[in-house]
């Protein structure tokens, strides 16, 4: 058989051949399996965020543990500041912790420069804030993903920080007047 005949004969071979059995049931079983979750860029980003939060939390925990920060911070014999916490799943960033610890450490000294009435007002306000923080932390331990609770707890910590700064600002003004 020469080349031309061979090629012509090859072109006449059947190109469509029916399989001896129906292959669809096996294919259907395979494609109807629950889809495996694909590693999409969005999932990768979410995983990166989770990793970042986890790493940040771990670093925060290590920093606060090293400083002996797991215990309460005592500002004065009358005022005890519990270590700032955020439910049992998250923790507050080191920047916040440092600012708060620094203000709490100075609070006793600062309060002594204020009148007894002012000291009492501040103590009452701080107690209200601490009670609220305590209640919200307990609630967050039960429901760690509750966004409303998280937001309120953050806002309360910000109020505490603002109050502490206000005390510091008040005494700074007094010192300035004394200087004059």
């Amino acid at each position, binding site marked *: *058989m*020469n*080349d031309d*005949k*061979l*090629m012509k*004969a*090859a*072109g*006449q*071979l*059947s*190109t*469509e*051949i*029916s*399989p*001896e*059995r129906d*292959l*669809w049931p*096996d*294919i*259907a079983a*395979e*494609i*109807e399996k629950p889809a495996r979750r694909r590693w999409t860029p969005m999932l990768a980003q979410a995983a990166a965020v989770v990793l970042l939060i986890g790493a940040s939390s771990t670093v925060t925990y290590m920093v606060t543990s090293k400083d002996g920060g797991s215990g309460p911070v005592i500002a004065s014999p009358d005022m005890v500041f519990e270590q700032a916490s955020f439910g049992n799943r998250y923790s507050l960033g080191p920047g916040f912790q440092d600012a708060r610890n620094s203000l709490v450490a100075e609070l006793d000294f600062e309060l002594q420069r204020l009148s007894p009435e002012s000291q009492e007002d501040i103590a009452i306000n701080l107690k209200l804030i601490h009670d609220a923080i305590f209640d919200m932390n307990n609630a967050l331990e039960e429901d760690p993903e509750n966004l409303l609770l998280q937001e309120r707890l953050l806002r309360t910590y910000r109020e505490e920080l603002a109050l502490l700064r206000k005390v510091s600002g008040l005494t700074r003004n007094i010192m300035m007047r004394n200087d004059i």
Partner: protein
Amino acid sequence: MAALLTAVRSDYSQVMAISSTDVIADESTLIQQAQRSNAQAFEALYRLHIDKVYGICLRMTGNVSEAEDCAQEAFIQAWNKLEKFRGDSAFSTWLHRIAVNSVLGRMRKSKREQDRIMAVTESAPVTVTTADTGDMRDLSEAVDRLPQGARHVFVLHAVYGYSHDETGDMLGIAAGTSKAQLHRAKRLLAQQLKQQGFEA
């Protein structure tokens, strides 16, 4: 009477043209539905194309069991990649390429598996297709006995009509290599067929 026959033939060809367009339109709709994870639409596409896909798998592997596995794998891969099909080529061409990759992938998997496929090919009765009869059946069996490289090129180029560029692209070889393998295949086939009593 002749005029009547002409008219009838003309009408018939129009009907055929319409139904052919409808088939293409139907396939396009089925593809769109299957792209939205409609398994029933994909089954319809399977029914439309299984003979072509199985055909190329059987011609390339020369073994019924391997061809079934390759065809199944090709359709599973097609389902998984369906959202990437943009219609730049015909759906059947796209499926063919997946089927060829499926065959090549299986053969590349391991040397042991290749040996097993070759052993089965050499010992078992080769391509059994009711479509090929007489001389065609002898040719078909001779093709199945070709070495793998020469067989793949011969099947894609001589049987399925792909150019050397297309064949080379599908098989991951140069067009020149495809030509060389075709030459080898033709020489080996001529020898085999001569031994079986076929003369030019």
